[in-house]
């Protein structure tokens, strides 16, 4: 079996006001992973460690078979990186940037760069400082894609884009996904973007990976069950309940281990299942984060009581 394109094993990084804690993550070759977290959750720190720009305090990171940060030069030959906070040189033209990178990357694909120029409606003689935000993101994406990287790392690339530009950027990303050898890590707090292009999803919150799985697995297993209970009946004990909402005799259960057999189990226990709602990735993310935070707070409370 092939080594994963990206592998994090027990990675930790401490800052005065933020800790990235015990990150374990594998990104198989050819997969597209959506890396979802709220602002300040640790997405960018994780990606900077992946790129060798920040050194982890503990744990090992391998990218395309290279140990990071020690072998970052070799790894970065095969990585295309676009980040929300990455800017190109405003005083230079896009054509100058293309020429600059063409000399550095042996696999630079000039015909593809020209195709992307047309598709993104960019002009190589345009100065970067004259481009709109959307055009700058497209320019950065062009410069990353035309390297023909084996790994594409996109850190919140669609943040701040208008809907049309976002649609175009995502469309182009979907087009490059046709290449099955290319691996993509796409970080965002916008679950809609991630849902469109990813086949794997990882949630990160407060510096910890809280869940990681196939997108379809998330969408299949997470459900909201709207129940009606008979008077004085207890809630049925179901597997994977992460949240109980609703009220009194009309509870709403959120489960991350849904099985159609649950419906008949509820009926057998006297409850009526009024509806089984599918959940969007955003709803799953929010429920997941809420559930983990509640669990963590509960565990901390228990520890304090024990002490």
């Amino acid at each position, binding site marked *: 079996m092939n080594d994963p394109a990206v592998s994090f094993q027990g990675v930790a990084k401490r800052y005065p006001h933020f800790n990235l804690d015990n990150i374990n993550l594998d990104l198989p070759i050819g997969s597209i992973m959506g890396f979802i977290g709220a602002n300040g959750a640790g997405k960018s720190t994780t990606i*900077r460690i992946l*790129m060798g*720009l*920040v*050194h982890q305090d503990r744990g090992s990171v391998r990218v395309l078979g290279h140990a990071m940060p020690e072998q*970052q*030069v*070799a790894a*970065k*030959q095969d*990585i*295309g*990186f676009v*980040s929300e*906070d*990455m*800017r*190109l*040189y*405003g*005083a*230079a033209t896009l054509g*100058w940037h293309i020429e*600059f*990178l063409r*000399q*550095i*990357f042996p696999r630079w694909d000039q015909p593809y760069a020209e195709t992307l120029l047309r598709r993104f409606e960019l002009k190589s003689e345009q100065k970067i400082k004259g481009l709109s935000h959307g055009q700058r993101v497209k320019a*950065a994406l062009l410069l*990353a894609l035309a390297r023909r990287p084996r790994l594409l790392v996109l850190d919140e690339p669609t943040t701040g884009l208008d809907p049309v530009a976002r649609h175009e950027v995502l469309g182009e990303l979907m087009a490059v996904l046709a290449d099955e050898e290319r691996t993509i890590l796409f970080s965002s707090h916008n679950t809609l973007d991630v849902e469109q292009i990813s086949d794997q999803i990882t949630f990160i919150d407060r510096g910890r990976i809280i869940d990681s799985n196939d997108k379809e697995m998330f969408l299949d297993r997470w459900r909201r069950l709207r129940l009606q209970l008979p008077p004085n009946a207890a809630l049925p004990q179901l597997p994977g309940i992460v949240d109980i909402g609703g009220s009194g005799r009309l509870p709403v259960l959120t489960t991350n281990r849904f099985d159609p057999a649950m419906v008949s189990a509820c009926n057998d226990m006297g409850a009526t299942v009024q509806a089984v709602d599918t959940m969007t990735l955003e709803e799953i993310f929010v429920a997941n984060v809420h559930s983990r935070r509640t669990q963590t707070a509960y565990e901390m409370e228990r520890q304090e009581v024990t002490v």
Partner: protein
Amino acid sequence: MNYSMVKRLILKDWYLQRWPILFSLLGGALALAIVAKGGQAGFTLGIILLVTVLVTIGAMLAMNLTVLERKEQTLAFVMSLPVSYREYTAAKILGVLLIFLVPWLAFMAGSIALIWFAPEIRGLIPFIVIMGTEILANTCMIAAVGLISESQGWTITVLMIGNLALNAIGYAVAHIPSIGNGMFRPHLHWSPTATGLLATEVAIICLILAGTFFFQSRKNDFL
């Protein structure tokens, strides 16, 4: 060390700084023309303009190539390239030094030539060389602080201290008898004190460069 990559990064900075360099060369040429026109007022005005242009272009290069790369968020673009931080540091330090050497050498050569052809003040040459090297050391210091501190505030503080120190050092050097007494005389007299001062300045430049590599190599976070 990937020297080819270091070279590419230096050429990139050269390209991006080409207009300030060109304008500084034009400013320097104007200053030298004023000096060449003769007269004490012209000489004083020309030298002040020349020093101002040299100090300004040095500070501008040191700031633009270090702190501004971080401030304008182009550092992430550079560091996404197959380059290590050691190579990046080498490119920045050598880049500031080599790019600044273009106007520096031009101005130094121009000033020395002008003074050489005005035989009554040939004695000024040691003072000019010492102060020119001091400006070079100043520029290296600003670039080093910019790279190491990554802070615009600290870099501007060092820039201001450096410029004040330049005036103080100029005053002090001009008052060293073995240098100051011969400044406005027709004979060039290169004293052991002048050699000592020049050697100290060169040693300081080497220390600044080595120190920058040392401190940069101990960093763990670059973005």
